[in-house]
């Protein structure tokens, strides 16, 4: 009873915030509503007894992906009002497509029938006396290890691709060579000189500045690119 009430509350907020994501005027509000939608989806997972998926959804989507979303949306200077200008013009077409899709879905789901005994034939029911975290782990790392690893590899390739595409050495930014910095010794940077009293002043009371040799420019190493940003 309480579970059912909670389900409808979470599902209702999920749908409402999903609608707000597309209809809100301010893009930052859109992203915040998206985060609310993620949260309610996580709550629905919890109600379904999939606590591992719920936590992963929050950690990955809310804790990392949406942060970067928000980051980008706040930084971008895009006039979203202009982008959304044709809303009324495209509304009839969009609404028609949406209604057709909804009808098709309704037809499919209306004719949906579970075969008797289908529940018993499920590929991998959660074993008795095992938490769902353990059950997911067992399935992923035994039966589906190759698919799982392939997915990981594809993500790795995408990550490397993104880095390769965006990494470029800006000639104007200066880099700090950490190794060079830490290898400096007192002997090569400091020179202690004992100066006679009055040696640095002229007769009229002015100050003589010592002639300092220009320091030799440090050779940038070939692999020094990308050591953080300039400063």
């Amino acid at each position: 009873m309480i579970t059912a009430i909670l389900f409808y509350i979470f599902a209702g907020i999920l749908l409402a915030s999903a609608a707000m994501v597309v209809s809100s005027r301010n893009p930052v509000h859109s992203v915040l509503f998206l985060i609310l939608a993620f949260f309610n989806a996580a709550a629905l997972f919890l109600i379904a007894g999939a606590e591992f998926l719920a936590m992963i959804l929050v950690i990955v989507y809310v804790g990392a992906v949406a942060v970067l979303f928000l980051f980008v949306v706040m930084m971008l200077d895009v006039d979203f009002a202009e982008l959304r200008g044709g809303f009324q013009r495209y509304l009839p077409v969009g609404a028609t497509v949406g209604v057709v899709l909804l009808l098709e879905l309704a037809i499919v789901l209306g004719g949906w029938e579970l075969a008797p005994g289908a529940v018993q034939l499920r590929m991998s029911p959660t074993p008795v006396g095992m938490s769902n975290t353990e059950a997911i782990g067992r399935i992923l790392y035994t039966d589906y290890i190759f698919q799982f690893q392939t997915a990981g590899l594809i993500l790795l390739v995408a990550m490397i691709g993104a880095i390769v595409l965006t990494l470029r050495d800006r000639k104007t930014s200066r880099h700090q060579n950490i190794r060079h910095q830490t290898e400096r010794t007192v002997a090569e940077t400091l020179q202690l000189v004992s100066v006679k009293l009055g040696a640095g002043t002229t007769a009229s009371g002015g100050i003589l500045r010592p002639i300092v040799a220009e320091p030799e420019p440090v050779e940038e190493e070939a692999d020094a690119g990308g050591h953080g940003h300039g400063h």
Partner: protein
Amino acid sequence: MYDFFYNTNIGLVILTVAEALALLVPLLIGVAYLTYAERKVLAAMQMRKGPNVVGPFGLFQPFADAIKMVTKETIIPSGANRVLFLLAPMLTFMLAMLAWAVVPVNDGWVSADINVGILYLFAISSLGVYGIIIAGWASNSKYAFLGAMRSAAQMVSYEVSMGFVLVTVMLCVGSLNLSDIVRAQQHMWFCIPLFPMFIIFFISALAETNRSPFDLPEGESEIVAGFFVEYSSMSFGLFFLGEYANMILMSGMTAILFLGGWMGPFGLWPQLGVLWFILKICALLFVFLWVRATFPRYRYDQLMRLGWKVFLPFSLIWLVLTAGALMAFGWLPNA
């Protein structure tokens, strides 16, 4: 009586509220005295006296500060987004409180003993960045915005290596339940076999809570006060409370993961239980303050370099080594 509290809905609600209060009231008093301790410790390290006027040894100073904050006027900048501006400090404070639901303070003393406790803690601590980003954006001020941007990049970077540290601990325990993690350290605290991970976790905790030497989001000398520059009175107070509550939470997490939670060293005085846990938290908090008094602030590129080029590869390699060692010597739990 037992029947009323455990088998009726009203009884359960009363019980839960009582549990929450029993945890949160001491926590808030702890937060109040952490601010006092910080000022006293910093003063001692800089050969000053620190607060010593209000009450004996200045012990009532936190309450004087609290009263001052509550009675001041809340100022909302005219260009600010009012709803989000007020939401951000509440969010920060709420998240800092929310995480304590799963923290076991003693054997069996936990209000929500869930299977995925450690993931819950990780999820909640990774949400902390929203309070800061929203505050920075809603303030409509360039300093606040710069602070928020710094904070977002910093917290996301350090979460990655923190995640690897957590995975290493989970490998050694074979469970995601926080009580199980503590019980697995019965014979040896994890800070001994996983010593490098302990250090990485603690430094990442410093970065996650935006504490010195990683307090760039609020770097006073460059961007005034960073993300909370526009906040005043209680809305500022909530940020303040949230930050200190997060420090206590991170110390508690470190104690649970690496220092054996409620267990004494070498199984000494197991009946002390919760006192051991508090003692460990206090020791870790002292290190937080000690670090603040000792180290200068990191430069931003150094911060990013440390996170991505030192901690991330190191924790990844240590994770693989740990997994290999567990497999090779047959030490895997539940095997």
